């Protein structure tokens, strides 16, 4: 009797406490998500004063028959794959390095995180400056100091070098996220486990495989899942750095705000949403499989 009464009073209070956040999220995320779906069936002018015209599936058909969309999808998948693998591997490697006490460890750790906490816009300018094809320091180092190349690539103007650049930028910027996550979990592994493995004659790789890897697996899966999602709809870093790499985020943005085709952009975001959902479900399935085996 007492318990029932308590639950109802909790329910009322919960409703009041959650009302502002739920309302805001419903109004500015829930409603837009649904209206996105709705808009995707219309020819939608950017000026809200002009009426929208219902065109059925045309936005989807146009998008799905456009070679640019598939190119963009391919670039996005490759970008996501390279950045996720690169930033996770580097983050893990650096975390293992830092998982032993040394002088200035705390300061070194803070300095490594710097690229992750600095606003994109500040980093973009210095990368543009460093990779400038005329007076950039990278060309100077590569050409005059190390003689890696005779003539510097036009980093931002050539699709391949621009792609390399955005991948490098993202790995450099986002590996600290994986580093911090891995360092935290590594520090919870008891040293006795390593000692026991050593007594059994395990080498470095075997110790990593039997002690480290199982312990960090849950964190690794979270890092990979979240990083995959975030890289998949990356817009700002790529858009600000170069106009030669059309990842889906940039493709969507330009369709909406450079070509003023809001309906088609909505169709693209619905497709993007479906792809990300599939990706998450696939990753989650894999997680379950690993856990049961």
């Amino acid at each position, binding site marked *: 009797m007492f318990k029932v009464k308590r*639950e109802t009073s*909790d*329910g009322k*209070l*919960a*409703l009041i*406490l959650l009302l*502002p*956040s*739920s309302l*805001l*999220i419903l109004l*500015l995320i829930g*409603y*837009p998500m649904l*209206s*996105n779906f709705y*808009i995707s069936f219309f020819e939608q002018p950017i000026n*809200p004063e002009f009426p929208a015209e219902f065109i059925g599936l045309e936005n989807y058909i146009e998008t799905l028959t456009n070679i640019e969309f598939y190119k963009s999808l391919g670039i996005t998948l490759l970008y996501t794959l390279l950045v996720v693998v690169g930033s996770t591997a580097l983050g893990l490697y650096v975390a293992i*390095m830092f998982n032993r006490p040394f002088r200035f460890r705390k300061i*070194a750790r*803070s*300095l*490594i*995180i*710097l*690229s992750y*906490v*600095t*606003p994109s*816009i*500040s*980093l973009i*300018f*210095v*990368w543009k*400056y*460093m990779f400038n094809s*005329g*007076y950039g320091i990278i060309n*100077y180092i590569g050409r*005059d100091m190390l003689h890696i190349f005779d003539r510097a690539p036009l980093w931002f103007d050539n699709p391949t070098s621009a792609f390399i650049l955005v991948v490098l930028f993202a790995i450099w910027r986002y590996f600290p*996220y994986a580093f*911090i996550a891995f360092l935290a979990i590594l520090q919870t592994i008891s040293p006795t486990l390593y000692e026991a493995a050593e007594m059994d004659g395990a080498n470095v790789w075997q110790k990593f495989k039997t002690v480290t890897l199982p312990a960090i697996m849950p964190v690794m899966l979270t890092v990979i899942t*979240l990083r995959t999602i*975030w890289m998949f*709809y990356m*817009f700002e870093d790529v858009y*600000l750095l170069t106009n030669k790499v059309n990842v889906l*985020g940039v493709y969507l*943005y330009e369709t*909406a705000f450079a070509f003023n085709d*809001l309906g088609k*952009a*909505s169709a693209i*975001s619905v497709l*993007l*949403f479906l792809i*990300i959902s599939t990706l*998450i479900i696939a990753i989650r399935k894999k997680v379950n499989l690993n856990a049961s085996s």
Partner: protein
Amino acid sequence: MAKRASFYIGIIVLLCVCLFPFFIMLMTAFKGSEEAISRNPTFFPKDWTVQHFLDIFDPTIFPYLHYLQNSFIVSVTASVISVGIAIFGAYALSRLNFRGRLTINASFYTVYMFSGILLVVPLFKVISGLGLYDTKTSLIIVMIVQTLPTAILMLNSYFETIPKDLEEAAKIDGLNRVKVIFYIIIPLSFTGIVSVFVYCFMVAWNDFLFASIFFSGSENFTLPVGLYALFSNPDYVWGRMMAASIITALPVVIMYAISENLIKGNVTDGGVKG
């Protein structure tokens, strides 16, 4: 001994690679305009100058201060409101028993994973429909919603660490639930609240996407859009851009350093987005 030395060399190489762009940013900000675009780039300025820093704070040369002010208004307002709302929501999710708790939690988690670029078109329509196009309010509202799900999830995990006994004791002493939030939960999770505030501030401070579609005139520009617009202008000066980049990064880096020292946790507590 040799092993130890090679370990330290490894750390130093790593730090050099990680910090190289910051070094270039800093040095270029102190170089003269001619030297910054020399075909034989220098690592350190030949003649040190602070002119670029003076320039960006001179409104007749560069509207930097104006953008800085806009960024502060948007980021502080959005973060205060977002954290304020999130405290109550997170408390309900972590402490109260009610039907639908798990569903609401799961929906916040879903929203946390999908956002930003996926919603630009409908949000642009909502904002212009509300007559908020080209106002700071538009960006403040959208930044609140962008940070809210994460803020709730983060605070939820902080609140979970506060012993429930403490709350029970306070209730026996006659505090009601709402008073418990103000007198027990908020003071005890103060450091957590600070770190959530820093997170919200960083998201709003860094936003380029929404600022670029909501603002038409430069009157409301925040730093990311303002600086990007200046960079697109052929008259930009590298040293000035670097000085502006440093000053733009400073507030978030300082806030981050403070919150790092305040809390023993880290950016992955509660899964910060980015």
